[in-house]
């Protein structure tokens, strides 16, 4: 079973925090779709087409800048190239692109999971983030989504913004919960160096909040969503039980995936193989249109020890954690006495749950990076 990721590299404007790959000019949309279809078809009859595709994910950039017709073309190409056993087809969209008709048309193409980039409902914060949509548009589209009856809809939220108060965060959560989403992704604002926000922080014009404040935000998010029956299953992902994202969860379990589009990453690890491979396309629309996808831009081979470390890194981010059996059978590693001792110490502090599965608690997840690093260097 595998997943497909499609990178749609267009945005109306650059959000201040964003370091995804995109262009703001829209003129190459159709050439891009044509090229994307070429890239998809190039996998026909290869070993990558031997596995059944279970999930498709339209990410970006802004997939909702595509017409439903273009989405249809892409999905057609996929079904002609890969054997399908689809369980989840996710489509990211921004509030300013959503209309009743658009949502209906998307549903007809086979999209069953809508992911809405709301980020905040506070006009000042939206302005600070330099989002293309207004607060009103955010509310409107939530209403439409609520009515549109996708199998699942999920809302993206950003917390830990400079100057953001707990009250403002609680209001965001309240409003979103009012529309009854099955899933919420809540990200703590990350300051990436090569973004507008990163530069302003570097220049000292914006002071990022203290990690104490961010930790409090995290707690508020987790508690509020839990009270609404939406439970944390990964650091930044929350769902009603059973509505967890399949595509994204697969990343954390080393399932195979293929990425299409500029900058898209792929990972493939044959069932019997002792090494997995990661590669990516060049992050450049122009050369993508000239067929740069024909050869990988960056590529790395990961042997079992590297895979094991990666699995720990990914697994510890999920509430499900990782089982020692899996580590032993699939990755041929087990914890050293020092590591076990460390995990028990963390358990006493309420940060870890041990047993057949090693899981971080909500408290542990908050400092998962430290715990992982400790575990790997102890």
């Amino acid at each position, binding site marked *: 079973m595998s997943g497909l990721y499609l990178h749609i590299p267009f945005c109306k404007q650059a959000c201040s925090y964003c370091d995804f790959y995109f262009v703001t000019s829209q003129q190459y949309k159709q050439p891009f779709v044509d090229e994307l279809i070429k890239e998809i078809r190039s996998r026909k009859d290869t070993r990558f087409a031997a596995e059944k595709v279970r999930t498709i994910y339209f990410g970006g950039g802004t997939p909702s800048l595509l017409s439903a017709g273009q989405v249809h073309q892409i999905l057609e190409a996929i079904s002609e190239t890969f054997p399908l056993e689809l369980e989840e087809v996710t489509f990211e969209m921004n509030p300013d692109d959503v209309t009743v008709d658009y949502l209906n048309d998307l549903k007809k193409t086979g999209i069953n999971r809508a992911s809405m980039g709301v980020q905040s409902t506070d006009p000042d914060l939206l302005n600070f983030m330099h989002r293309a949509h207004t607060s009103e548009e955010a509310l409107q589209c939530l209403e439409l989504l609520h009515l549109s009856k996708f199998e699942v809809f999920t809302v993206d939220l950003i917390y830990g913004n400079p100057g953001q108060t707990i009250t403002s965060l609680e209001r965001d959560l309240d409003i979103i919960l009012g529309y009854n989403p099955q899933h919420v992704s809540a990200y*703590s*604002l990350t300051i990436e160096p090569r973004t507008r926000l990163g530069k302003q922080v570097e220049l000292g014009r914006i002071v990022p909040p203290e990690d104490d404040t961010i930790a409090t935000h995290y707690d508020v998010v987790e508690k509020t969503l839990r009270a609404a029956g939406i439970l944390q299953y990964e650091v*930044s992902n929350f769902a009603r039980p059973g509505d967890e994202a399949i595509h994204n969860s697969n990343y954390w379990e080393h399932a195979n995936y293929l990425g299409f589009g500029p*900058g898209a*990453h792929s990972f493939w690890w044959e069932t019997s193989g002792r090494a997995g491979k990661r590669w990516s396309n060049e992050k450049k629309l122009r050369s993508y249109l000239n067929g740069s996808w024909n050869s990988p831009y960056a590529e790395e081979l990961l042997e079992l020890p590297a895979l094991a470390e990666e699995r720990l890194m990914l697994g510890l*981010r999920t509430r499900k954690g990782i089982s020692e059996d899996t580590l032993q059978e699939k990755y041929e590693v087990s914890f050293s006495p020092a590591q076990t001792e460390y995990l028990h110490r963390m358990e006493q502090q309420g940060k870890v749950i041990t047993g057949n599965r090693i899981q971080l608690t909500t408290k542990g*997840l908050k400092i998962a*990076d*430290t715990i992982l690093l400790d575990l*790997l260097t102890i």
Partner: protein
Amino acid sequence: MNNIRNFCIIAHIDHGKSTLADRLLQITGSISEREMQEQILDDMDLERERGITIKSHAIRMDYKRPNGEEYVYNLIDTPGHVDFAYEVSRALKACEGAILVVDAAQGIEAQTISNLYQAIDQDLEIIPVLNKIDLPGADPEGVGQQIVDLIGCDHEDILSVSGKTGEGVEALLETIVERVPGPKREDDKPLRALIFDSIFNTYRGSVAYVRVMEGVLRKGDAFRFMANGEEYNAEEIGYLKMNKEPTKELRAGEVGYVIGSVKSLQDVRVGDTITKVDNPAEEAIPGYKEAKPMVFSGIFPTQAEDFEDLRGALEKLQLNDASLSYEPETSKALGFGFRAGFLGLLHMEIVQERLDREFDIDIITTVPNVQYEVQLEGDERIGVDNPSQMPEVGDIDTIFEPYIKASIITPADYIGPVMKLCQDRRGVYVNQLFMQNNRVEITYELPMAEVVFDFYDRLKSGTRGYASLDYEFIEYRKGDLVRLDILLNGDQVDALSSITHRDKAYYLGRKVCAKLKELIPQQQFEVAVQAAIGSRIIARDTVRAIRKDVTAKCYGGDISRKRKLLEKQKAGKKRMKQVGTVEIPQEAFLAVLSMDDEDRN
């Protein structure tokens, strides 16, 4: 005819000694055009990189006068930096003359004077040379007057050259014949050869560079080091040409090398005298002072298992650098390592760099300090070169600290800032002397501890780079000093202790705590950082526990990046030191050093 001339080139740092040596080598044909490169005698990697001379370099040249007479020149190029002043003193002993180079744009500087006085003490013939006359900013008249005032010579005695263009260098070569006396040629006396330098060669062992003062040393002779009586055979002797040139004998007045199956350099001591086993000299050549380390610092391997490698590396370094001293040290915080003594901070930096570069050993160094003398209750007086070994307050009667005499030459406009700096550093004013060109020499006596750190940098920045500094040890004096300890979560970290003047302890304590707070990464628990004198806590800060650090996003495209970051973090963490339960980065051990001056005063 006495056709040998032995001389050295001395000057303030950067005044162009090595460049002038290049021209001498070139004009005498001692080196081919093909081999020629700038400052060719600076053959150590670090010398080439930093553009400074660290070690003296001796070289023999054949000089043919315009009138056809042939001469042998033995030249020693010396370093200018104050840390290596002892190199100059050794070189002087092997010579009859000294070329005193003065940068015609800079004028007389602190080491010009100190090196000149050393040469005069040795009764050397001084040839004053104005260098860099090609520079547009050169001021031959003014600087010439400074030289006349300093040496008491006539204007006509001063030569003008450019080491860069070669102008005036031929005249200099002639002047050397005329003015530098030839060495005495007392071949028939018992052998006395002065070791003025030594190097270690992996294949040949120790190579002694000698100046034969009296007698003759022949290949195959049995010889003896007069300091310890060890005897060897002169397996090979020769001249110090660009490529070493073996010969059968070295006669009185000559300079050359001796290889004597001396595998350990411990026997070859610079300053020692070589004599022959049969018909030995009665007395060694007098007056040699050993280079004494001035600053001390702990050197510890980052990984405990590198300890033996570190020992091996220090041993090897010492073979070529007798001024480096070290002994094993154990620190509660840093484990097994060494306490090493250096001539100065530059010397320390160079050793650390070589350990890292030539031996690839990752080391942690502690804040350098001077050596104290402590009068204990009762009669005993001990030397303390490690703050953590300072006895408990109750056992101490008096602490003495080394003082230096510093001479600072600066344009008169900066007298104010220079004096302020010296006062801030507990200096005692001695005098000031006005020189030509509106320059002044200011003399202070200062505690050495106040000078070794960043005094020089401060001096430079306070005088827009114009001031120069020279210093020499004078004596130990009583000081109101205390040991400042640092505690992390209540545990004293020995490697972070320092000794400071009581009046500065509070301020320093507060600043060190603040700096450590900045440097120590947040951990899963709170870390209390405290400064204490004895059992009294004088400052406190807290490194708060991590509340949240997890990366927000980790999807398909983020995984590679996150794993690479993890690799980096793992490497960084491996380089941290675990002290009790607290992890400290290496920089923390130098926290006191990384504070700026306003912080310190």
